[in-house]
């Protein structure tokens, strides 16, 4: 498996939702993917992530992912990311 396989997956039984728990670098990698930026993270980007990060696929059909970090959340829409995540669980 690729990058996402190194993360822990917590699959819920409802509505096809999948929650992903990631450590700092994994979470940041996901955000980079969501943002559509290419390439590996720079050391400075990795260092900038001090706290854990979690991703929650809120709506697989719509490609909605909620990113939980620090005491905030951010909802992004990325059907490619959601497809990659869901297929990784199979």
């Amino acid at each position, binding site marked *: 498996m690729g990058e996402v396989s190194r993360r*822990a997956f917590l699959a819920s039984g409802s509505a096809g939702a999948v929650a992903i728990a990631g450590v700092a670098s994994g979470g940041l990698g996901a955000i980079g993917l969501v943002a559509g930026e290419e390439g590996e993270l720079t050391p400075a980007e990795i260092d900038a992530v001090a*706290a854990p990060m*979690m991703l*929650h696929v809120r709506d697989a059909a719509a490609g909605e992912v909620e990113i*939980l970090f620090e005491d905030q*959340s951010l909802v992004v829409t990325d059907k490619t990311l959601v497809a990659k995540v869901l297929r990784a669980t199979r």
Partner: protein
Amino acid sequence: MSSHREAPSIAKDPVADSTDAYAFVTPNSPGTVTIIANYLPAELPAGGPNFYEFGDDVLYEINIDNDRDGLAEITYQFTFTNAITNTTTFLYNTGPILSLDSPNWNRRQTYTVTRVDHRTGASSLVASGLTCPPCFVGRRSTPDYDSLAAAAVHSLPGGVQVFAGQRADAFFVDLGSIFDLGALRPFQSAHAVPIPLPGISNEGVDTLRHSNVHTIAIQVPIGSLTSDGTVPSDPMSAVSVLGIWTAASRQKGSVLDGQGGHTEAGPWVQVSRLGNPLFNEVIVAMDHKDHWNAVTPDQDSQFAQYVAQPELAKLLPVLYPNVFPNLKAYTKDRADLLAILLTGIPAGIVPGFQNSTGSVQADMLRLNVAIPPTSNPNRLGLVGGDAAGFPNGRRLMDDVVTIELRAIAGLTIPLVDPSFTPDAAASAIEDGTFNPTERIQLDAFPFIGPPHSGYRVPA
């Protein structure tokens, strides 16, 4: 119970479970308001070796609405940090704890207080590193508990006092009887389901008599809570009424790491709240209780149906046949309860008194700070002619179970519908429990009494 384990989800999360909220003009400092937020229901005092503590992953809040919208304008936030002094022992303490910096005390908590002004968005650190007292382990471990608790009362800038730690639960109720098909022991001979009476006492059994809780208490100058910064003296002024409720929140995401640790991330999500006692407990239907805990009071119109046609008012005539004929025949919406619990009592109902917060339906304690404390309180509060008591805020000695039972039984309907005559039983109904004085200290903040000792209870 008032709100002990009152909803399915929060019953599984005791450290975040709001059990009671109290708010009153401070008896020995009438220029201030004291607000008490209790959590951790039904603590067994002998709870060692892991004695009770606040959650270090929970955000505790005391909210004040001063502009009648059911939303907080001011919030005091409390977060806790654990520290272990000796990592080589399983013990809570390795000798007598004689002071809050005792090396014998192995697991301790400190906390941070933050004040949020929602009008400006400003979040101000009030204080950090504040010490909690230990739990009352017993006379060997905590030989002078009152001194430890007194040392944990912190005076902060701006005339604020705070305390956070274990106390005796001041709430009293015959839980075992009430939730056994609504039986009230003093009147059980009239119950629809008779049980053999010989040997069965008609006295109420106070379920919480030996239980502790964890208390957050704060005493704040009135002028720092009102919308215009004044200390109102006119009870009929809208400025004089504060809406008050407590809450607890957890972060949206939590992951167990499989090594005994856990990680949280994301915004805080409310998992518990408390305004009027017993609101979620005996009014909101089971299927909506968890949702009620998750929303803010400004959204409470969705629960108004349960207040307008309370299930308990329908059950009383069934459980006590022929005792409540007038209540049974009353089919109108309960405008009295809608006012008492959701909007406050408007002017013109009780002479010289009001605690209205306008038309927004919101479950909050409503405290008219222009009503001075009384030296001769009546446990029935406003129903007993004492405007300084519930439902004008809530004092520790207020018998809210009796007050609300009588209100639901119809005693307060004539306030809004003079054509109704309450059943005789409405003014007599009670569960037979009485507030024991040892669970309240009348002369000093935090006013709620010292916890029961693990060594002595149950005694």
